[in-house]
Each structure stands twice: as structure tokens, then as C-alpha cells.
């Protein structure tokens, strides 16, 4: 079990809170009930820092820092709700919406979607940028799950959970830049994958409707990302080991 870390003072938007040395700004905010929007971060997995939704201002006028990957320091002054940050978050969300095919009205996760929640939270009500409308095929070859790349935001939660928690590494990203895409094995249909254990953790952590159970209808798919936190915590504490300490 972790020892309690030394406490320091931090402030979020001018209000003082207690921070613990060693935790990230995002963890600190969550622990104190302060909202910092984020997408790719998931407790229990390594920090990816790719979505850039959680960027915050640390001290005056400095370069923005991702809250998920910035350690708390004494007397840190963190700004979340500045006009600039609000505008940036909205733009980054718009970029995500424009790059895939996110049509909530026909999505299995409508109403249970982190991307959708984020758009609501950040007041993103329209997209200024050109929809890329990529032509991407849905992979429904797996008996239990469906992968719809149109709704993927490349947060890599599934890649990380499959590699770090399940140890199978079925998923990865191919190509780069705007061509970057999620793949299973050698870009083969998921159903043909030999390494997939059918554990469903990737589906549980997906923030959008990209990974879902077969047969889910619109709005039916509910994810369970918190499960990973439970697993990771249990693993850290060795909860399934012999209590006498034989490992």
C-alpha cells in the first residue's frame, strides 16, 4: 500500500486545495472534486497525453501543460477555466468531431459517450472545420464485439489496456498522422485474431461507440472504464495473492 505523500498547497482557478507530491494535476483535481475535462487518460493505465483536452495553464503566460502528465508541485497555480483554454478545448473537440464520423443520433453509445459528454461540458455546439468524412469499414467479424473505426478518436485506451492489463497486445496503431488507424494483429479482421482472449477490456474502456458489444442498438452500449481502475488497484495491492505472502 502506498504511503501517504507529503501534502502541498495548490490552487485551481484561484481556489486553494491540498495537493500530494507525486500525484498528477489531473489526479489531484479529481480527488478534490475539481473538473478537468480529459479523454485519453484512464486511471490504471499508463499516461498517454495525446488528446490534449486536459491542457491547463500553470503559472502566468507559460506554455500549456497536460494535466494528466504534470506533477503537482508546491504552491502551483493552475488555471482551468480561462477564456483561452475554453476556446482551445472547444477547438480540439471540433477537430476530433471533424476527423471521424461521429453521428450521435445513430450511435450505440448515444447518451453514454465520453466524447459527447465532453462536447456538452465544453459547450461545443457546432463544428467550424471541414468534415473529413473518411470511408472506414466497420469490423463486425468478432463473435462478441464490434469495432467501428468511424467513431475512434485514437485515445489508445484499448491498445494500452490490452497490452498492459491483459497482456495480449491485439491492438495497435498503423500508419501515422491523419492516416493513423486502430488495427488488430496484421490488420486482419478482429474475428480472425489469434491473440484476442475475448476479455472485453478494450470494449469496457472505449470512450466512444467505437468498440461495442455485438447487437447493441442505438444508445444501448454502456462502457465500464472504472473496471480497469479496480483491476489495476487490485493488482497493485496484490489482492488475489496468498495473504501469507507466497507469490
Amino acid at each position, binding site marked *: 500500500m502506498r504511503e501517504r505523500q507529503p501534502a502541498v498547497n495548490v490552487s485551481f482557478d484561484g481556489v486553494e486545495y491540498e495537493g500530494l507530491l507525486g500525484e498528477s494535476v489531473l489526479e489531484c483535481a479529481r480527488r478534490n472534486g475539481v473538473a478537468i475535462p480529459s479523454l485519453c487518460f484512464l486511471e490504471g493505465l499508463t*499516461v*498517454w*497525453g*495525446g*488528446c*490534449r*483536452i486536459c*491542457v491547463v495553464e500553470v503559472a502566468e503566460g507559460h*506554455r*500549456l501543460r*497536460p494535466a494528466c*502528465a504534470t*506533477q503537482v508541485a508546491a504552491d502551483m497555480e493552475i488555471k482551468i477555466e480561462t477564456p*483561452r483554454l475554453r*476556446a*482551445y478545448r472547444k*477547438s*480540439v473537440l471540433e*477537430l*476530433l468531431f*471533424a*476527423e471521424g464520423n461521429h453521428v450521435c443520433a445513430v450511435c450505440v453509445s448515444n447518451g453514454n459517450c465520453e466524447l459527447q459528454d465532453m462536447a456538452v461540458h465544453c459547450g461545443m455546439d457546432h463544428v*467550424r*472545420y*471541414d468534415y*473529413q468524412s473518411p470511408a472506414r469499414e466497420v469490423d463486425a467479424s468478432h463473435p462478441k464485439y464490434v469495432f467501428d473505426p468511424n467513431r475512434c*478518436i*485514437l485515445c489508445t485506451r484499448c491498445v494500452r489496456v490490452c497490452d498492459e492489463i491483459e497482456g495480449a497486445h491485439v491492438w495497435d*496503431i498503423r*500508419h*501515422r*498522422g*491523419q*492516416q*493513423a488507424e486502430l488495427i488488430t494483429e496484421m490488420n486482419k479482421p478482429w474475428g480472425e485474431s489469434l491473440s484476442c482472449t475475448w476479455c472485453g477490456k478494450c470494449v469496457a474502456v472505449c470512450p466512444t461507440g467505437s468498440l461495442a458489444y455485438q447487437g447493441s442498438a442505438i444508445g444501448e452500449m454502456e462502457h465500464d472504464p472504472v473496471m480497469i481502475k479496480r483491476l489495476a488497484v487490485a493488482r497493485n495491492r496484490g489482492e488475489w495473492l496468498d495473504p501469507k505472502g507466497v507469490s
Partner: protein
Amino acid sequence: MAAPIDLHEVMEREREERFRTRWRVKACSSTACLSAGAGATIKAVEDLVEREDMALEVQVIPTGCMGLCSAGPLVRMMRRGGDESDYQKVTPEAAIEIVRSHVLDEQPVPEYELDVTMPFFTSQERVVLANGGVINPDRIESYVAHGGYQALEKALTTMKPKQVIEQIRLSRIRGRGGAGYPVASKWGLLASAPGKTKYVVANGDEGDPGAYMDRTIMEDDPHRVIEGIAIAAYATGASEAYIYVRAEYPRAIERLDRAIRVARRNRLLGRKILDTNFNLSVEVRIGAGAFVCGEETALLASIEGLRGTPRLRPPYPTEKGLWGAPTMINNVETLANIAPIIDRGGEWFASLGTEKSTGTKVFALAGDITNTGLIEVPMGTSLREIVADIGGGVPNGKEFKAAQTGGPSGGCIPAKFLDTSVDYDSLRELGSIMGSGGLIVMDEDVKMPDVAKYFMEFSMDESCGKCTPCRAGTVQMHSLLQRLTEGNGSKQDLRDLEHLCSVVRDTSLCGLGQAAPNPVISTLQYFRSEYEALIHEEEVVHA
């Protein structure tokens, strides 16, 4: 174990070799001259020497880049203990004529003579490129004869690691890869990092379009890079080093590989270097076509055999780099400066250039300019001197419009700033960056929005795709620029473009994304009217 190389004996031997023949023919065999036909030229001279039995009179020495690539193939005739004549555009026939005329008649051939009194040559100050056109890059003896590995010997036998870093600190040299971070600070960080395993990495992933300084250094003077790495490793306590070279530079890879083998055989690398207790292994790692791998954390990922996506910093590589061990990444040109600094002292180096940007900088001059090629000037030289004097100005009677520095991460500097001193801080103030040293001159015909679109397409293609603003933002900026340059843009498009520039600059994960909007920002700053002229508001409203 074989005895280490005796540097002084090799120097002596090489001196004798130098005076063996009355004539030495040095022929540039760098990539540019080879493309211009230097291979045939060299062969013609070698055949002539053999055919007319001149071997006792003439020796032919292929060398690295002599600088003026646009006038290649370049050949230099050197008389024992005496004068030199340089020749340009030397075809095989010309080469035969030149050699015969010198050797048999003691007469130069004015027709092909190159005027070495022109500013292109006289305004340069060669430190990094000192051996270009002088040594034969394939022979370690040739490097040693010109003072090579003296600095390493001096450091290993007479200096403590701390004293080496002190000289680097006195030199105030800043990283040549682009950002200009003080080199001594980086070395100090690695030296004080805990742990037994530490790495030094030479960054030879020169990806900026229009830049080929590092390639030239690696091809023409591979031992200088190795010597710099060895000194860096000694100063910082590293025992393993990598040179990361892009795969597009096969000659550089081959020469470095060979140089490493030869250095090891001569006990300049490997175990107990020069009979001291210092050990170092060096390995070349090859890129595979990804610009982002010039970013230091992406480069490390690539060395580890992974996708070249940047990692979050902190932790910085000097704390946690290759396989989690402290790692320092230096640019190839930075490392090429190390031996001269140790040789001649940090204060000597600091006397070159300006107060805050010391030393010299190598630039690749290209684009709409008379003399294209590789130049090295003291920091602080004005842009005008580089373009008008050294570069010989814009050809075809056209007007100078802008100079682009820093590649896709840099900006365009307009004519009114031609008198700017070229150093890290002045360029940054103008919205550009020093970058690795590509300097592309554009004449009046070049349309700036097109240039911005060109670079945005580059950044879009080279984005690794890890973070949203760079992956998707460059796509949207490119599509806005496309619309604008086609004449279909609106005022709102221009506003959206400017907003996206700030979003991508401020929220991207790595330097590539953060700098991707720079070409747009700088062309908007200096050539805004060109963008505005592209907007026909009525038509768009109608559409």
C-alpha cells in the same frame, strides 16, 4: 589487444606522404559533385596518371565538400609547398587538360579557374567544415594528419570530465539542432544523472527539406563526429553511444560504419581507449523515413525499435531516456564543434560569433540564389551578407522576396529585415528559428500562401498522429490554405486559420506540432496582403 594508434607517428607519416609528389589533385567527391559527374572526372585523372606514368609526380585525393555545389565538379591543384589553383565545372576532358597543363607546363588553365577571392570563399569561417575539401574522408590517417583525435587524446590524458564540461561551458556553444539549448547544461545534466548506464546519442536525422549540413559532416568528416561523441561520453560518464542517421543518407551510414570500425581497431573506441580506463561503444542506427524522429523523444523511441512517436517531457531524456536510462541527445553539427573547442579552448570558440550565439553556423544555401552550396559563417553575420555577398544575390535580375529558415518549423524573413544578424535570438524575434541551417531564398515570383501551404502539407504528412491538434489541426489548416490559395476562401477562413495556428502551437505535444503553424504565422505577419488579395468575399457569400 593491439596498441592504440600513435597519433604523432601517423602525422609524421602523412607529412612525408604529402610531400612525396610534386602535385596533389584534390577532387570534391561529395554527393552534389558526384551528381554533377565528379566520378568520371576523378577516374579520368587517375587514368591519365597511370597512362602517362605520372604516379611519382601526381597523387589524386578524393575529398569532401568544397562548398560551392552549384559549380561542381570542383578540383583543386596543389603544388608542393606552394600555390593552389581551384577549378570549377571540371569535366573529364577539362580535368585532363588542367592536370597536364599544370604538371607538364606549370601553367594554370584560366578557362575553368574558380575565383577564390569572391566573397563566397573569403567571407566564410570554417570550423566545422574545416576539413571539407581537405581530407580524404575514407582515411583515418588523413583526419589525424589534420589534427584529428588530438582533442580526444588531450581530454582523456590531461583533463578530468569536469574540466571538459568547463571548456564547453566557456565556449557557450548552443545546440545546433534548432532550439539552441546550451550544450554545457545538457552535458552537466547527464554527468550528474545517477546510474551506471548512460547513453550519448548523435542526432543525424536531418529531416528539414533544404538542409544537408549534417549529411555533409557525416559523409565528409565521420571521424570528427565520432571524436565529438567520444569526448561527450567521457565528460558525461556514458559508455554507450548511438548515431541515428536517416536511411536516405546511405553514404553517411556507410562512412560512419567504416569509421567506427577503423576507430575501434585503432583503440579510439572500444575498451581502454588510448590505454586509459575509458570505454565506449558506438553504433549506427538507421531511421526509416519519418521527419518526427528528429524530435529527441521520438528519436529515442525509434532507436528502441518502436513507432517514432514523441513522449511526454518531463521526464527529460537526461533523466529517463533510452530504455529508461539517462540519455543525452546532441545534434551532429554540435558534436562536430566539440573537438575544436577542446583543442583550442572554450574561450577561443566564444570569441567567434555574438555574445549569446557563439561560434559559427553551417547553412545550406538553396533556392533562387546564384551560389547554392554549403557555407559556414560566424553567428551574427547579416542575412544580407549571406544572400547578397556570399550567395551572389538573386539570379535572373529578380528581386529578393524572402529567406526561409528553419524548414517546416521556421518562417520567412522579408527583405526589410535583410540586415538582421543571423543568430538564435534575432531569428526567433522575427518569428523564424535558426533550425538546423537550411536557408532557402525566394524571389519575387514566389507566392507566400503557396509556401505556407507547402510547409503545412509537409507537417500534415509528417505528423505522427499521437496528439489531436497536430494530427487533425494540420489537416484543417492545410484545407483552409488550399481553399484560400485556390481563391475560394473567405474572411472567416482566414480567421479560422489564425485561430487554429494558436490552438496547434499551444496545445500540441511535441516541437513538431508546436512549430507546425510557424510558416503560416510568419507569412501572415509579413505578407498578409497576399492572403487578403486571395479573398473574393462576394463570390463566397453568393456560393
